[in-house]
């Protein structure tokens, strides 16, 4: 390495770091999903650990903490799988921790369909 290379290298690192800093300043907490359209609607929420709950969305924050009213909690057992009528609890007004929310979807507009992935053996 020649002498100019050694001198230029720290300068380049500084420029790159400054660019990163500007990017972080501009990149505020932009939500990719607007939950205000779901306010006062019935939604289903799935959590890390297998719990599911549904209720009326009353509030939320950018960290995805939710306030649900009239909450029903479903627990998943080995033989439960999709039988959500087992082990339901009425919880009422509930705060859901955003760090453990994995899925939010509307309660309506879903129906069970026959398994499309089963291979036919007729060949």
């Amino acid at each position, binding site marked *: 390495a020649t002498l100019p290379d050694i001198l230029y290298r720290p300068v380049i690192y500084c420029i790159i770091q400054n660019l990163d800093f500007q990017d972080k300043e501009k990149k505020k907490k932009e939500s990719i999903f607007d939950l205000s359209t779901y306010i006062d609607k019935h939604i289903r929420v799935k959590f890390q650990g297998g719990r599911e709950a549904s209720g009326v969305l009353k509030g939320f924050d950018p960290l995805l*903490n939710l306030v649900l009213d009239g909450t029903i909690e479903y627990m998943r057992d080995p033989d439960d799988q999709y039988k959500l009528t087992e082990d339901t609890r009425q919880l009422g007004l509930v705060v859901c921790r955003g760090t453990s929310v994995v899925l939010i979807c509307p309660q309506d507009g879903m129906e069970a369909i026959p398994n499309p992935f089963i291979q036919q053996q007729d060949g």
Partner: protein
Amino acid sequence: MAAIASTNPSQLLPLELVDKCIGSRIHIVMKNDKEIVGTLLGFDDFLFLCVSEITPEGRRITKLDQILLNGNNITMLIPGGEGPEV
């Protein structure tokens, strides 16, 4: 975070609801099968303080005095909850 939270003034903020619950009973559901019932003493963005503990799996109730609960594993908070069929 505070600037974007004011999307709709008539909605209920989650941390506001938890804040209202300070000093009264709260029921905390963890990611696993543990649940905690007690009096909420305070919280910050990550942690909570409670009083007594209930484990519904073997119906084992462990009474603790004051605990500092790590918010990492919390799934739900139910103000005024009494726990599972206490």
